[in-house]
């Protein structure tokens, strides 16, 4: 199906089913409520066929361009039906499974993710491994045909809701760095896994610590090849900076539109509004070009770090305006809508930290795009 036909089909269907799809809560809701809403919307859009568009048939998709996925996320976030951060996680996890999981496993699992039946998480960061991902130390050792995992992950989004985890483990020596990492697909109900949610500044418990104490994972759950997990991480990160960022652009545009409609007279500086709008439009233009390259079958790489720097800068510029234009709501408001403005303002402060910090993105740009050589 072409983008244009898909766009109008999605819009018509969303209008027709607006009542079924609507949020059952006002404002931000609890994380439980958000997750229930996410599952409902994914289930309905999957059953209507839209969620399957743009995914390959061998994992239950209906084929077609990845632009269709970009538009579906845009339509859902623009109507405030889903929170873009949690909605976009399959954009990162499903391509990994499609590219690296054994075919039967991918065919079995990916539809569960797209249909909202399951939530998956991504076990990458550790207490001692933030920006320097290749130093991770959560260990997997062979135990017969299986792998035995001991260690800890942190910043694992939605681990308390997740049925599965794409986990990076150390299988080589600690010194092997990026050459001794293996990716495993782990069932979160395995014995020995403990999840502890962390309360963040914006009032959610979205990020978790995950502890692995002698957790056994079957050998057929290796993604890609043993000791070659770094390639998976590197392939996955550009996905995190493509379709998911288009969804985020739609969300930021929605919030900026709401802000300029709601802000009391005299609270917004025209120059600041003009600058934030230009920046957001430039980010959208950049991200659209990235969507088109992805749809044309190009392999995305380090150039997506430019998109990531732009989204963080644009998000913080938009929410700086929110703090100025809706200061009363952000600072004093206790109603659900004010709470959402406050939470989203606070969350925007992390935009330059999560998913590879602003500094790491600039390091990648310097090394890979400007060819400035090693930095030490």
């Amino acid at each position, binding site marked *: 199906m072409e983008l244009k036909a898909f766009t109008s089909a999605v819009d018509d269907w969303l209008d027709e089913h607006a009542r079924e799809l609507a949020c059952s809560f006002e404002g931000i809701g609890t994380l439980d409520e958000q997750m229930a809403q996410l599952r409902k919307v994914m289930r309905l859009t999957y059953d209507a066929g839209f969620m399957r568009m743009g995914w390959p048939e061998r994992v239950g998709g209906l084929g077609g361009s990845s632009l269709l996925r970009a538009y579906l996320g845009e339509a859902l976030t623009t109507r405030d039906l889903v929170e873009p951060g949690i909605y976009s996680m399959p954009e990162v996890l499903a391509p990994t499974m499609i590219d690296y999981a054994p075919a039967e496993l991918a065919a079995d699992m990916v539809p569960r993710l797209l249909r909202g039946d399951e939530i998956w998480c991504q076990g990458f960061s550790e207490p001692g491994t933030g920006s320097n991902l290749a130093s991770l130390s959560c260990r997997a050792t062979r135990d017969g045909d299986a792998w035995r995992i001991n260690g800890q992950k942190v910043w694992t989004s939605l681990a308390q809701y997740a049925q599965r985890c794409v986990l990076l483990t150390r299988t080589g020596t600690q010194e092997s760095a990026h050459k001794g990492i293996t990716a495993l697909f782990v069932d979160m109900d395995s014995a020995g896994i403990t999840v502890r949610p962390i309360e963040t500044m914006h009032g959610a418990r979205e990020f978790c610590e995950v502890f692995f104490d002698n957790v056994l994972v079957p050998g057929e759950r290796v993604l890609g090849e043993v000791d070659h997990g770094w390639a998976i991480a590197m392939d996955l990160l550009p996905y995190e900076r493509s379709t998911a960022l288009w969804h985020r652009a739609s969300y930021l545009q929605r919030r900026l539109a709401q802000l300029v409609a709601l802000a009391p007279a005299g609270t917004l500086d025209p120059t600041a509004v003009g600058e934030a709008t230009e920046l957001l439009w430039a980010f959208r233009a*950049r991200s659209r070009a990235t969507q088109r390259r992805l749809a044309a079958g190009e392999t995305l790489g380090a150039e997506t770090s430019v998109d990531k720097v732009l989204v963080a800068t644009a998000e913080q510029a938009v929410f700086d305006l929110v703090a100025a234009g809706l200061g009363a709501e952000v600072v004093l408001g206790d109603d659900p809508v004010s709470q959402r403005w406050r939470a989203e303002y606070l969350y925007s402060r992390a935009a330059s930290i999560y998913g590879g910090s602003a500094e790491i993105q600039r390091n990648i740009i310097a090394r890979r795009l400007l060819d400035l*050589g090693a930095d030490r």
Partner: protein
Amino acid sequence: MERAERALFESGVRHATETAVGAALDTALDDLGWADALEADRATAVSVLFECLGTAHATSGALDRLLAATLGAGAGLASDGVAVVLPPLRHCEAPGRLDGDWCVVEGLGTAGFDRCATALVVAQTPDGAAMFAIDLGLLTRRPVQGLDPALGLSEVMGEFETAWAAEPEPVDWGAAAGQGQLALSSELVGAGRAMLELARAHALERVQFDRPIAGFQAVRHRLAESLVAIEAAAALLDAAWEDPSPVNAAMAKAFAGRSTRSVARHCQQVLAGIGFTTEHPLHLFIRRTMVLDQLLGAGSALTRQLGADIVGSGTLPPAFPL
């Protein structure tokens, strides 16, 4: 243009801008068929040429020819015969004003102005804009040195009785100014790329504390920041060509200007002492981009106007669809 055709066109245009300036460059562009490309694929013709002009620090009569073509006067005039009076610095309204039977002109001319026999003057009218084709001798010109003498601008002034001119034609000045803004945006992006390449080459060559300064994160991040600014401006510009509305053109121009100011700041800091001398070419690009930022609407004023329109109406301009 097809990809291969575009690559060939681009390498021809690049070579021309690197080896010729002024009248010689205009002749070289004629030989390359730039005017035909302008009719057949305007976005490519304009963005390729003006980015090369920015990178090569070259001047040509191309802006006049683009504006003349957009105003509908391109076909009737020889390539060496078209001068278009630009608005005064910082402004983007039409440079002429009707006063009874007279048209009062106050604006700028590009480097090619003196080579032309005919000047196109667009004047604001109660219901839009009208274009007069007049003899160049009716206008007085004062060559401008200013910050960037190499750009060859002149201040253009004069008044003429409208009866002397050929019958005025109603024209869409806003559309022409928008195309000019897109062209200048490309030139800013090209100049930004040139500054980044100068700073990058310096960072790799300059050794302090026993290593190239490109190894220091403070330097690397300034260069990375510059690339982000350039690529963002280039992306916004490409998107604006798909829908060259006045608001999109103004946004592209303002953002290209702001991005280039940031690139200039970072690159001059990386180049440090040598970048502050006239022994290094950086200053040429800093001068050029500061002037371009103020032609056909100053970037800061366009941004403030965009913001004021948004705040005043409570709505955003239309966004680019996927």
